[in-house]
C-alpha cells in the first residue's frame, strides 16, 4: 500500500517539477494578437464602438470582451475578418451593410465657428474662422462627430447618391 | 414595358425544370414497378400506395410546419419519388406501419429537418430503409416468393388488405430468403456457395425478378432499361452507374477467382440486392452525390467498394443502403477536394504560367 503512495507522490513531484520548468523556460511572450487586431481596425479612433478608441477596442476584442461587430465604420467586412481572426462564429446576417454616409454642411446655416473642424479626426472639414466650411467627402468617414458639435444644426449626414459606378446588383430572393 | 426590379441575365432558359426531371425518373421506374406489382400481387400494390401517400402526407405536414408554400414544393415530385423508391426497396408484403414509419423517417428526419428539397445530406429513402432494417429486422427480412396477381394461390384483394394491415399472417410456405440472405445463412452453417446457391439462384430468373425480393431488387433488366433511358436523356450522368457497377463487378471477379466457394461472382452481385436500382436511381440522387464528373466517378467506385465489403464480410445481408449513406457522408469532402480545373489556373488553383508567344497557331494549317 505504501507503494501506492510513493508511486503517486513521485509522479506528482515529477510532473510538478517539469511543468514548473516548462513554465519558466517556455514562457509565451506577450500576445501579439492585440497588435494584429489593432492593425485591422480603421484607426480613426472615432469612438462609435463606445470604447475610448481603436487600441482599447483591439484589447477588448482580443480578450473576447467585445463583440466582433463593435465597429460601425468597419462594417460587416471588418466584423467578418475579426471573427475569422478570433475564430469565433457570428451571425452577421442581421448586421446591416449600412450604406456609407457623409457629412454635408448646409451652407446657409454655417456660421464658421470651426467646432466641426476641430473634432474631425480625418481633417475632412476645411474652412477658416467665420467662413463657411465645406466637407471633403473623400476624407469623411461618416462618424457624425461634427454633427454633434455643430451649434446651428448646420451639418447633416447624407447617404451617397447612387451612380452607375456605385450601383450594385441586389441579392436574388431565394425560396 | 417597365420592369421594377432589374434582373440579371441570362434571359432565356433551357427547357425543363426540377419537376420534369423527377417526372422522368418516376416514368423510368414505372415498368419495373408495374412488373413488381404484378409479381407480388395486391399486398405489394397496397404497400406501394401507402408508402407514396404517406410520403406525400408527411411532405405536406412538414411544409406546413415550416410555413413554406405547399403547392410548388409538392408539385416538384420529389416526395413522390422518395416514397416510390422506398416502397421499391421494402419487402413487398411488409405491414402498413412499416411503410408509414419509413415514409415518415425519410421525409421528416431525412429531408425536412435539413430544410427540405436539396438541403438534405443523406438519401432520404436509404436512411429510412436502414432505420427500418435495424429496428425491425424481422419484418424487413420477411420475403415472399412471387405470387403473381390473379395467379392461383396468390392473395386476392381482400386477403391482400389483410396481409398489409397485419390481420393475417404470411403463410410460411410463401416466405423465402433473398439470394444474398441465403448465402449468408449458408456461411453460418459452414456451407459453401456450391451448396447454397443451387436451387436458390438462377441468373435468368434473378434478372427477370421471379425471386423472393423487393420490387426493386428483382426485374434488374427493366431497371437497367429505365436507367439507360435516363442516361440518354442526360437526367443522370453516366459516371456513377458505370463506376459503381464496374467496381462491384471487378471486385467480385477478383475474389471469385481467389475462392469460388466463398465469394460469389460478378453476375450474382450485379443482378441481386437491388444493385441496378441503386446504380441508376439511388446513388444518382443529385442532391446527395457529388456534382463534378471526377467526384462522381470516385463516389460510384466508393459505393461499389463498400457494397462489396459489407455484403461479403459484414453482418447485414445487404450493403447497398449502408454503402450509399456512407458515401453520401463523403460526398461533401469529395466535392471539396475534387474541384474541376478552373480556366487559366492549375488544378491547385494557381494561375497558369503564361506561355509567351507559342509557335504558330495549330489551326492555321487547316484552311479548307
Amino acid at each position, binding site marked *: 500500500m505504501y507503494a*501506492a503512495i510513493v508511486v503517486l507522490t513521485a509522479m506528482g*513531484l515529477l510532473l510538478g517539477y517539469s511543468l*514548473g520548468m516548462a513554465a519558466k523556460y517556455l514562457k509565451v511572450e506577450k500576445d501579439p494578437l492585440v497588435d494584429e487586431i489593432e492593425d485591422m481596425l480603421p484607426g480613426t479612433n472615432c469612438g462609435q464602438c463606445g470604447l475610448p478608441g481603436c487600441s482599447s477596442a483591439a484589447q477588448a476584442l482580443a480578450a473576447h470582451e467585445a463583440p466582433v461587430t463593435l465597429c460601425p465604420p468597419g462594417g460587416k467586412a471588418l466584423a467578418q475578418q475579426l471573427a475569422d481572426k478570433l475564430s469565433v462564429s457570428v451571425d452577421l446576417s442581421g448586421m446591416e451593410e449600412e450604406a456609407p454616409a457623409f457629412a454635408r454642411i448646409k451652407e446657409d446655416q454655417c456660421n464658421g465657428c470651426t467646432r466641426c473642424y476641430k473634432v474631425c479626426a480625418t481633417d475632412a472639414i476645411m474652412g477658416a474662422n467665420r467662413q463657411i466650411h465645406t466637407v471633403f467627402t473623400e476624407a469623411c468617414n461618416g462618424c457624425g462627430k461634427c454633427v454633434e458639435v455643430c451649434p446651428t444644426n448646420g451639418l447633416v449626414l447624407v447617404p451617397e447618391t447612387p451612380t452607375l459606378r456605385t450601383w450594385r446588383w441586389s441579392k436574388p430572393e431565394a425560396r | 414595358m417597365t420592369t421594377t426590379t432589374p434582373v440579371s441575365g441570362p434571359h432565356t432558359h433551357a427547357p425543363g425544370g426540377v419537376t420534369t426531371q423527377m417526372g422522368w425518373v418516376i416514368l423510368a421506374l414505372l415498368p419495373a414497378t408495374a412488373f413488381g406489382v404484378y409479381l407480388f400481387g395486391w399486398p405489394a400494390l397496397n404497400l406501394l400506395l401507402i408508402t407514396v401517400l404517406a410520403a406525400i402526407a408527411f411532405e405536406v405536414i412538414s411544409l406546413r410546419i415550416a410555413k413554406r408554400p405547399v403547392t410548388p414544393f409538392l408539385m416538384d415530385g420529389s416526395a413522390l419519388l422518395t416514397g416510390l423508391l422506398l416502397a421499391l426497396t421494402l419487402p413487398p408484403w411488409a405491414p402498413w406501419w412499416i411503410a408509414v414509419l419509413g415514409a415518415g423517417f425519410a421525409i421528416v428526419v431525412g429531408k425536412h429537418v435539413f430544410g427540405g428539397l436539396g438541403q438534405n445530406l443523406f438519401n432520404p429513402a436509404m436512411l429510412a430503409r436502414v432505420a427500418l432494417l435495424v429496428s425491425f429486422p424481422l419484418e424487413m427480412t420477411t420475403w415472399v416468393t412471387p405470387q403473381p396477381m390473379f395467379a392461383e394461390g396468390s392473395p386476392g384483394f381482400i386477403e391482400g388488405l389483410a396481409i398489409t394491415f397485419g390481420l393475417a399472417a404470411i403463410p410460411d410456405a410463401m416466405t423465402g430468403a433473398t439470394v444474398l440472405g441465403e448465402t449468408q445463412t449458408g456461411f453460418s452453417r459452414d456451407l459453401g456457395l456450391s451448396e447454397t446457391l443451387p436451387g436458390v439462384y438462377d441468373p435468368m430468373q434473378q434478372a427477370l425478378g421471379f425471386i423472393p425480393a423487393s420490387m426493386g431488387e428483382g426485374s434488374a433488366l427493366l431497371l437497367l432499361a429505365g436507367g439507360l433511358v435516363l442516361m440518354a436523356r442526360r437526367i443522370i450522368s453516366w459516371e456513377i452507374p458505370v463506376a459503381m457497377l464496374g467496381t462491384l463487378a471487378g471486385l467480385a471477379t477478383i475474389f471469385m477467382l481467389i475462392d469460388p466457394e466463398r465469394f460469389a461472382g460478378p453476375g450474382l452481385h450485379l443482378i441481386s440486392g437491388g444493385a441496378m436500382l441503386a446504380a441508376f436511381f439511388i446513388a444518382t440522387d443529385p442532391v446527395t452525390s457529388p456534382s463534378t464528373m471526377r467526384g462522381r466517378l470516385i463516389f460510384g467506385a466508393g459505393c461499389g467498394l463498400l457494397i462489396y465489403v459489407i455484403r461479403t464480410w459484414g453482418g447485414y445481408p445487404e450493403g447497398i443502403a449502408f454503402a450509399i449513406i456512407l458515401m453520401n457522408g463523403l460526398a461533401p469532402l469529395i466535392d471539396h477536394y475534387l474541384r474541376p480545373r478552373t480556366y487559366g489556373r492549375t488544378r491547385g488553383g494557381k494561375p497558369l504560367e503564361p506561355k509567351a508567344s507559342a509557335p504558330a497557331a495549330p489551326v492555321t494549317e487547316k484552311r479548307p
Partner: protein
Amino acid sequence: MTTVAQPSYRQRVGYHSALLGGIALMASAVLVITDMQTRDTIAERQAEDFRQTLEQVIPASVHDNQPQQDTYQLQTADGSSLEIYRARQEGRVSAVAFQVTGRGYAGPIEILMGVDAEGEVLGVRVLRHKETPGLGDKIEVARDPWILSFDGLSLGDPPRDDWAVKKDGGIFDQFTGATITPRVVVNAVRDGLELFEQHRSTLLQRGDESAPSALAPPPALLSPEEPTS
C-alpha cells in the same frame, strides 16, 4: 486569476513540484484507505455474481461444495485448455460446468452449461452475446424461456440427429425470422455434451480420487494424459 500578484516563492519550481506532489500524496492516501475498505467487498461481489450464474446451471441441490473454487483445467483435443467447475456431493463429483462458444449472427455467443454425472444437461445460460435485440436475444433467459428447453436432455435423448432446430429437421424451436442464433446455440450445447462424453472419465474420476478442497489443485499436478488408476 492571472492578474493576481503571486508571492515570489510560488514562482519557484520547487513550489509547483511540492504542490502537485503534496496533492498526489493526499489523493493516494485517501484512495489507499478506500481501497482497503472496498477491496474485499468488491471481490465478494464478483465472486457472488459468478456464483449466482453457476447456480443457475448447477442447482444447489446437487452439491455441497463451492464449484467456483473447485476448478480444473481440461486440456482439450485441439490443445487449448478449458476451465471446468466441479460440483461435489460428499466429495464425489456430481456435476460439472464449463463454458462453450458459438459463432452467432453478430459475433461470438458465450454459453455456460452444467452437466451432471450422467451426461444430462442441468442448465444452460448465455453469458455474453451480440445478437440483435428483439430477434436473436431470446436466448437470454430474462427474455424468453427457450434456453430452458435444454434442461434434462442428453446426447442420446433426443437422438443425435434431432439436436437441431426444427427448420433443419430437429426438435428445437427456432425464433421467427432468426434461425441462425438458436442453431448456433443448439450446436454449441451439443458440442459441449460431446466434449463431456469424450472426457467423462477424466472429469468424473479425477474428482473421485482427490479429497474435496477449497483450492483448485495447481495445474502442474494434473496432467490429463496421465492415466489414473
